[in-house]
């Protein structure tokens, strides 16, 4: 029990800071903080797949797109409550993730990367194909828009709920199976772990998390779902976030989410690189730098600092 105290302590600190933040921040900064919350959900989900199960995905932006369009379409056609649409996005993306995971479980490594990349490219283009229903390039407008404060609250509440869910999933039998698959598929099979089932399950769970993130993402852009917002770049950002996060740490996922959520906005204000292209260069360089300097991501850095403090 004593071992859990620091973890509970840091949870409490994060919760208090998040509760106070909206009273301190300006409206625009509240919006940025909500954006970080959205990426928190997505990076948390992707981390279950890449970090715990060791499967790469360069296509989880596609699940954000599916979740986002679920929200926008349900809101436009049925005036569904946006909280309910988040649950729908979760359920729908879980099913789609499982269905995609079924064939994907036969692939590994680079081939899986290619297949998921295919997903990232194809899904936004499909909106054009079913443009009568999905609005084509002009997108889908949901029936209501919410204030930045509302989105902030929704994003971080969803983060808290899903963080709890992830913890419950990962601490037990399922989490052990995920890690076994990551460390060695052959050894996992030999120990009686059905690797197919667990890979698919990990894919479904991470897709569901990203679906919720996508629903929030659409709400944050004034309830407007557009194919351009779910480009390949979004999928790459999620992967970068998961890499920055490292493994198994709340602080890591927070750092990863802040990295991808805030960095594009911060570096625009740097005077020397005041344009979009300069921002891309800085972003890319930082990504490379993080990978070179922090092998275990932010979580690995924390672990190293902790062991230094102890000795």
């Amino acid at each position, binding site marked *: 029990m004593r071992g859990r105290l620091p973890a509970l302590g840091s949870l409490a600190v994060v919760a208090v800071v998040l509760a106070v933040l909206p009273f301190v921040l300006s409206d625009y900064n509240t919006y940025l903080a909500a954006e970080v919350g959205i990426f928190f959900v997505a990076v948390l989900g992707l981390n279950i797949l890449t970090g715990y199960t060791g499967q790469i995905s360069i296509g989880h932006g596609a699940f954000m797109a599916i979740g986002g369009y679920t929200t926008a379409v349900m809101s436009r056609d049925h005036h569904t409550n946006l909280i309910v649409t988040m649950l729908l996005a979760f359920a729908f993306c879980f099913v789609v993730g499982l269905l995609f995971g079924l064939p994907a479980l036969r692939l590994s490594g680079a081939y899986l990367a*290619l297949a998921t990349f295919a*997903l990232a*490219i194809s899904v936004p283009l499909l909106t054009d194909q079913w443009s009568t229903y999905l609005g084509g390039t002009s997108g889908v407008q949901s029936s209501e828009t919410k204030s930045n404060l509302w989105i902030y609250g929704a994003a971080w509440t969803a983060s808290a709920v899903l963080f709890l869910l992830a913890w419950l999933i990962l601490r037990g039998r399922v989490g052990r199976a995920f890690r076994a698959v990551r460390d060695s598929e052959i050894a996992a099979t030999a120990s009686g772990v059905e690797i197919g089932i667990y890979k698919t399950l990990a894919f479904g769970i991470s897709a569901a998390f990203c679906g919720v993130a996508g629903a929030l993402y659409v709400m944050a852009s004034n309830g407007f779902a557009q194919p351009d917002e779910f480009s390949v770049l979004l999928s790459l950002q999620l992967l970068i976030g998961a890499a920055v996060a490292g493994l198994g740490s709340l602080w890591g996922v927070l750092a990863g989410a802040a990295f991808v959520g805030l960095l594009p906005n911060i570096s625009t204000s740097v005077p020397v690189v005041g344009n979009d*292209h300069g921002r891309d*260069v800085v972003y890319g360089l930082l*990504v490379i730098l993080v990978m070179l300097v922090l092998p275990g991501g932010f979580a690995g850095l924390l672990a190293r600092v902790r062991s230094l403090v102890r000795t």
Partner: protein
Amino acid sequence: MERLKAADLGQIVTGAFLLAGAIFLLVGCLESSNFATYTVQGVGVGMTYGSLALALVLIYQATHVINFAQGELAMLTTFIAYQFTKWGLSYWEAFSVTLAIAFVLGTVLQVTVIRPVQHRSVIATVIVTVGLFLVIDGVVNWIWGGQFQTLPLAFGFSSWDVGGVFIEKYYVGMVVVVLVSLTAVWALFRFTKLGLAMRAAALRPAAASLAGVRVDVMLAIGWGLAAVLGAVAGLMTQASPLSSLDPAFMQPVLVYAFAAAALGGLESPAGAVVGGVAIGTFLTLLVGYVPQISSDLQLPLAFAVILVVLLIKPSGLLGRRQVERV
């Protein structure tokens, strides 16, 4: 014995499949002049896909990493060639200088940013290439973006009239240039000591280094060669008057190269080239003959191909099944 037969059967089926495709194309070309035009176009662009796919395969074979920056690297070198022509070099002078620069650029990138992470994990290395993608994209947009520019056409604009069929010279030129560079790379790997050392370093790094091969140097040279093949792909993509010199022009080509590499098998250099030509002709004919399929749908279609192939034959058409030892 049983398993050997199964492997042979797979190869025979693949061979028969490719032969049937070739016969289909040949008969079609003899029957219809439209079909012949589409086929020449498809083989031309397919060759550029194949060249970039081969670049991906070279790097994949050595380090089991897919280089997501390969297309952007090719785009950068094409812009460098553009700059040289603007400074007054002729097209082919710029072409050769650019290939040399591409080689240096590839090796330097491998040594500076890839080498430190390549032993850590595949995911880390892939993310570094994603970072490179962003950096190169930003740099090129910064320097050359936002203005209209064209590279001189390598083979002009004219076409030959062969028995009523118009064959554009630039597609033929693309095929010839790519074939020459592929042959050069093949000869390097097949007949030189350097090529032998590179193959050894890719196949059995530990054993190769015990035999005195400097594996790190070989990997760097591999990246250089891949960058050269990419530069050829980029420059030849621009040899068609249909394409414009825009910083995003290699992104769809990279996607088709991915499809080609997956189709042929990431382990198989010949498969990459065959896959590129197959994807190029298939998509060109499809878009030409089925009006419902817009060129926007080409990308998802290429990936539908990938998914189907990977489901039926997870190691690609010409790839070998990996058997892991415990």
